[in-house]
């Protein structure tokens, strides 16, 4: 008796299931499932430590301490040649340093792509500066390249120069520091992009009659270019936000008055956090413009698979 009563009520949800799949299945079809929960800590982390401070700084930059409309900080920055020039000074350091790091890393990584004795030792030596940090590098540069450092003593001792050459507390010092700390990074990235290119492509090109230079320019380089673009962007971001070495081995109030120093001055010497935020925002925009240009160029390249087929 009870069975006949419960049967219809039991059947109706079953029929509804048949017409429409369960919510869980419909979500899964759109790629939403429980594993997405794993994203929560990461997203929370980024929101709390990056998105919130960024938005806070952004709105702060539109509330100038000295009044005068919400764009007053930006107007002041671009009206003052000393401030305005920091963009140019930073680009003048960051762009050539990033280009040089990437360009130099390519032949070295290319030469080191095969297996050879001592490869690990050499790689360690090349990558070691990354562990030193900018302050230690700056300290070393000051000692080594300073007026009484080894380098100048050797040059004067050999009578190559009469007066010690000035390599620190100027543009050169900061540039060298950017190369020393930036190269290992560019080299590691370039190496990993290179190792992703199927070595049989090079061999195939060789059997087809291409000498080494042609194999590099026609096969390896085109496949490496998208990776080099990304390497450049990251190297540039590192170099553009230069602060410690500009302060320590540069001329922070003159030729290496870079934009991060300007932001620091505004915020922590003049206690104008609003202005400091505005300078930081300008810095971010300049970086985004450069990266945007490079990535736009990258999208015109071949960016597909770097393997020669099935393997």
């Amino acid at each position, binding site marked *: 008796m009870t069975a006949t009563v419960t049967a219809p009520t039991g059947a109706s949800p079953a029929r509804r299931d048949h017409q429409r799949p369960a919510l869980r299945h419909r979500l899964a079809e759109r790629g939403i499932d429980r594993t997405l929960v794993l994203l929560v800590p990461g997203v929370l982390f980024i929101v709390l430590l990056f998105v919130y401070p960024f938005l806070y700084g952004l709105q702060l930059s539109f509330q100038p301490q000295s009044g005068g409309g919400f764009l007053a900080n930006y107007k002041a920055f671009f009206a003052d040649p000393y401030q305005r020039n920091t963009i140019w000074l930073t680009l003048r350091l960051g762009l050539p340093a990033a280009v040089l790091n990437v360009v130099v890393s390519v032949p070295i990584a290319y030469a080191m792509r095969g297996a050879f004795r001592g490869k690990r030792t050499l790689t360690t030596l090349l990558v070691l500066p990354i562990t030193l940090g900018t302050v230690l590098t700056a300290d070393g540069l000051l000692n080594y390249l300073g007026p009484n450092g080894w380098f100048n003593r050797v040059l004067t001792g050999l009578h190559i120069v009469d007066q010690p050459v000035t390599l620190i507390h100027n543009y050169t010092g900061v540039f060298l520091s950017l190369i020393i700390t930036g190269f290992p990074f560019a080299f590691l990235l370039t190496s990993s992009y290179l190792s992703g290119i199927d070595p049989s*492509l090079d061999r195939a090109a060789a*059997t*087809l009659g*291409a000498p080494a230079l042609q194999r590099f320019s026609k*096969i390896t380089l*085109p496949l490496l270019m998208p990776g080099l673009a990304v390497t450049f962007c990251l190297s540039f971001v590192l170099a553009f936000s230069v602060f410690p070495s500009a302060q320590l081995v540069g001329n922070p109030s003159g030729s290496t008055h870079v934009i991060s120093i300007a932001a620091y001055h505004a915020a922590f010497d003049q206690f104008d956090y609003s202005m400091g935020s505005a300078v930081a925002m300008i810095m971010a925009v300049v970086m985004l413009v450069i990266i945007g240009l490079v990535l736009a160029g990258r999208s015109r390249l071949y960016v597909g698979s*770097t*393997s020669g*087929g099935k*393997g």
Partner: protein
Amino acid sequence: MDTPRFDTLRLDGVSRSFGEQNALQGLDLTINRGEFVALLGPSGCGKSTALNCIAGLLPLTGGSIWLDDQRIDGLPPERRGFGMVFQNYALFPHMTISANVGFGLQMRKVGKAEVARRVADALRMVQLEDQAAKYPGQLSGGQQQRVAIARAIVLEPPLVVMDEPLSNLDAKLRLEMRMEIRRLHQALGLTTLYVTHDQEEALSLADRLVVLRHGLVQQIGSPEELYTEPVNQYVANFMGYRNMLTLDVEAGGAGTPAGGTVRLTGSGVHLTGCVREALGGGPAVAAIRPDDISVGGAPENGIDVLVEVVEYHGRELAVQGRRPDGGTIHFRTDRPLKPGEPVTLTVSTDRVLVFSGSTAAVPEPVGVAA
């Protein structure tokens, strides 16, 4: 360098070692113009090493390679001018199909119009003329392999080397491409050196086979020679002699030279076979191919088995039978046998090949249809 037509490619004691390990030891081989030679052996036998040495991708540690009377083993690959087809195709992913095929011609500074004409010809040859503007990633595995072949043959090289070109294809496509390679070879008369671990592939394609083991040549011969007259257990095993019975030589049989007949016994089996390898005093191995066994028939070389496993293969059945002593016998028959049925198998004396030693010396069977 455009290599002129040649008559023979001669390998003279070609050796390659990696540290202590000898990957290839003293390979002597002469390939005549227009010939299709297959290097056959399981992985690690040295066949790919041999191929890479010939293509110039790996320097030799001994011996020399001659194209007629010109020594070429010192030349880099780009100056040997051999066409190579790689196992993973190695197509340039950033170039269109026609650019891939035209790459070698471009490197040889062939004029634009001629490049276009020859690329079109080569693509027509492999039936891909309508795919010329696509990129390798847009093609299927079989099509990619065809492009790789077109890229190698468009240069009309004196020698085409192929490194397991079919191993990445599925079974059906593999059969099709095998035909295709044979057809291209017949149509163009290209001298081809083909490396494979698949005996069926080697037998069906090659004019001559070279069986390698641990870097040493085991046998060189026509498919028929290798198929019917393997020189040792290893080659026999590779050529599909699936039944390998370790038996004792009956009194008076020890010392029988190759070519003689000998009686073997053991495990409840008595067999008379042809000696292929001079027998010592120890045990001998009788190698029998499943297709050479018949059910019933003449009473010579009778083996009693119980049918255990029956596989349907269309016209024939592939059957595993169990002998009274517990060993297995594989055979093929068109009789409708059922598991559990007792049958008497026979095999003619000249199809029982007798080698010295025991089966313990035989390498593990090689996976053929991977």
